[in-house]
């Protein structure tokens, strides 16, 4: 028996843009800027777009955190530090692709065109994230850790049955992305998803944002080897990418999605990143992690490196950055007002949303409660 080396940081991580803002080459992956229809796009324009995406995403996050502090939200799941992982992946998706998020994919939701206010509704408690997933091919947030990875795999099995893998038609071949965290990798459901996806060769990309922490538990508690290597045990490829490098994440995810669309089966992508904020606004990370760690990761900020790159390359100037800031301010204002304006749900509505076909027994319970509420009319 030869023990397996438990090294967690291994060399194989794909990086194309260093924290210092230098472009670097990688033997297997290169960033290519493409237009929606697959044509060649202006690289500067595309990277400026990612910068803007990440700034706006961060603003959605900081604004929502503030709203929670002001009592407008019950809780908020911060993505601070994970902007590149989510935008790099979100921008690699095609319209027909389908996403199964956790509860932290605000940046991906933004890429899919979902109004952030729909997400705020969930955390405000006016609903449970009731958006129509088919409207943006973006499933509803899933809170039970790992459950959505099986849903994604099943959805991908449906795509196979619809004959939409490996046809070569770039507008029809479809891949599915299952998001999950480092902690989630320990759930039985996630490993069963690997098994089903491998067994049926389903077109699903398992996109793991390894942000180093599962609430208070470090990644070492979940796995003694780099997470992307988990895929080796199930017979499909895994790759680790610098999750704070939007270009690398985009390049690797693009390849992974195409690999799945072409009918080659599942892929595991580990976006190596860091949860800069608390687990949620109710969490207190000072109880379990060192501020040094935070300082170390600050130097790897996903947005700063792109800004440095754009500036150095003369691809963007002060005006541009200020314009993006203004846009972010406007977005922030819209979220503040929009959140406060979210209407409270109708008490009786809960009885109407349980079944597609209402039952007599529940309708009766509804009526009884309606009469009960009515009895307070004027009284209260």
């Amino acid at each position, binding site marked *: 028996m030869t023990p397996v080396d438990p090294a967690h940081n291994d060399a194989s991580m794909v990086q194309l843009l260093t924290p210092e803002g230098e472009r670097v080459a990688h033997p297997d992956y290169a960033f290519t800027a493409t237009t929606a229809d697959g044509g060649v796009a202006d690289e500067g324009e595309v990277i400026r777009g990612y910068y803007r995406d990440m700034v706006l995403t961060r603003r959605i996050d900081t604004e929502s955190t503030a709203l929670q502090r002001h009592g407008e939200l019950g809780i908020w799941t911060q993505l601070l530090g994970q902007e590149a992982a989510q935008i790099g992946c979100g921008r690699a998706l095609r319209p027909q692709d389908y996403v*199964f998020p956790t509860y932290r994919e605000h940046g991906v939701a933004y890429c899919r065109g979902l109004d952030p206010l729909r997400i705020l509704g969930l955390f405000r408690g006016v*609903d*449970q*994230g*009731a*958006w*129509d*997933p*088919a409207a943006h091919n973006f*499933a*509803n947030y*899933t809170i*039970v850790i790992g*459950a959505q*990875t*099986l*849903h*994604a*795999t*099943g*959805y*991908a*099995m*449906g*795509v*196979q*049955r*619809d004959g939409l893998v490996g046809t070569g038609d770039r507008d029809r071949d479809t891949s599915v992305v299952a998001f999950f965290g480092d902690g989630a990798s320990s759930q*039985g*459901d996630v490993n*069963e*998803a690997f*098994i*089903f996806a491998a*067994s049926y060769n389903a077109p699903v990309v398992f996109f793991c944002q390894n942000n180093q922490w599962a609430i208070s538990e470090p990644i070492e508690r979940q796995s003694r080897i780099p997470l992307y290597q988990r895929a080796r045990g199930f017979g499909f490829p895994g790759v680790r990418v610098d999750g704070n490098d939007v270009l690398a994440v985009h390049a690797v995810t693009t390849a992974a999605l195409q690999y799945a669309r072409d009918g080659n089966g599942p892929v595991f992508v580990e976006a190596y990143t860091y949860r800069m904020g608390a687990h949620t606004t109710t969490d207190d990370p000072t109880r379990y992690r060192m501020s040094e760690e935070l300082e170390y990761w600050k130097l790897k900020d996903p947005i700063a490196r792109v800004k440095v790159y754009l500036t150095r390359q003369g691809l963007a100037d002060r005006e541009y950055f200020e314009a993006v800031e203004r846009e972010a301010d406007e977005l922030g204002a819209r979220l503040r007002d929009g959140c406060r304006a979210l209407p409270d749900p109708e008490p009786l509505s*809960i009885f109407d*949303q*349980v*079944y*597609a*076909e209402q*039952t*007599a*027994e*529940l309708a009766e319970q509804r009526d009884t409660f309606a009469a009960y509420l009515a009895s307070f009319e004027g009284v209260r």
Partner: protein
Amino acid sequence: MTKMTLAKALNAGLRKAMENDPKVLVMGEDVGKLGGVFRITDGLQKDFGEDRVIDSPLAESGIVGTAVGLAMRGYRPVCEIQFDGFVYPAYDQIVSQVAKLHFRTHGAVRMPMVIRIPYGGGIGAVEHHSESPEAQFAHTPGLKVVTCSNPVDGYWMIQQAIAADDPVIFLEPKRQYHADKAEVDEAAVPAPLFASRVVRLGAEVTLIGYGPTVKTCLKVAEAAAGEGRSVEVVDLRTLSPLDLGPVYDSVRRTGRAVVVHEAHTNLGMGAEIAARITEQCFYSLEAPVLRVGGFDTPYPPSRLEEEFLPDLDRVLDAVDRSFVF
């Protein structure tokens, strides 16, 4: 018109559903070549192919969890859980996802899924093969729970469950699979899925059963008749929602009721039914609603299952007791 066992009727009903709707899929362990350990899916893979009759890896959470995704993609998965005791690995997916997605999404996501579970005891099996999990699912809003007691219902109810747009836990009394044959008229107009049925008229006491215990109740009624006692028997058919209208009508006439099921008595369906009957028929009751169920012990080794399960004598005893009040 063909005479069929419950097993054959379910198989025929599944086949019909698959013919009628190409989106219907069957998935589970050994449902393919083998046709399931009870042969309920016999021949389906041969005729509908491996894409529609799917042998799954050995993981129940995986079966139900992937079925959720297939349903979101527009399919109508029919999952087979091999035995009642093996539904629990899938419990989380069932109660937290299958049951809640419609509610969570205000109906944007529907879950037209059927989870077939051969349930109940009496087949001399080892541990985990004779469980009656119905109460746990009936306690979970968002699920619908039905159970068939005879071939005719089996043939129609499985098709109606598959056609329903809500998730249905479909409980099959495995002990009845090959018990009796009945004429199934494929041309008939079936009774609605979510309706109970009075299967024997009587005047003095109302016996309420479902699935495997309906037969027992009918035997009891027969025996009681011999002793000059008139027993009405209701086959619930649907456990969630409950359709107790016919039960209330009956109890208002008889003044006495006994609920019979194999599940543990404590917090079994009998508890809910007794509570509701008492609320609705308080002034008609001559005696408290009595319950005859499995004991509040784990299901015993098979050599003791006849003692554990409600049988003719134990139900008759309860009927007698309901008259001493």
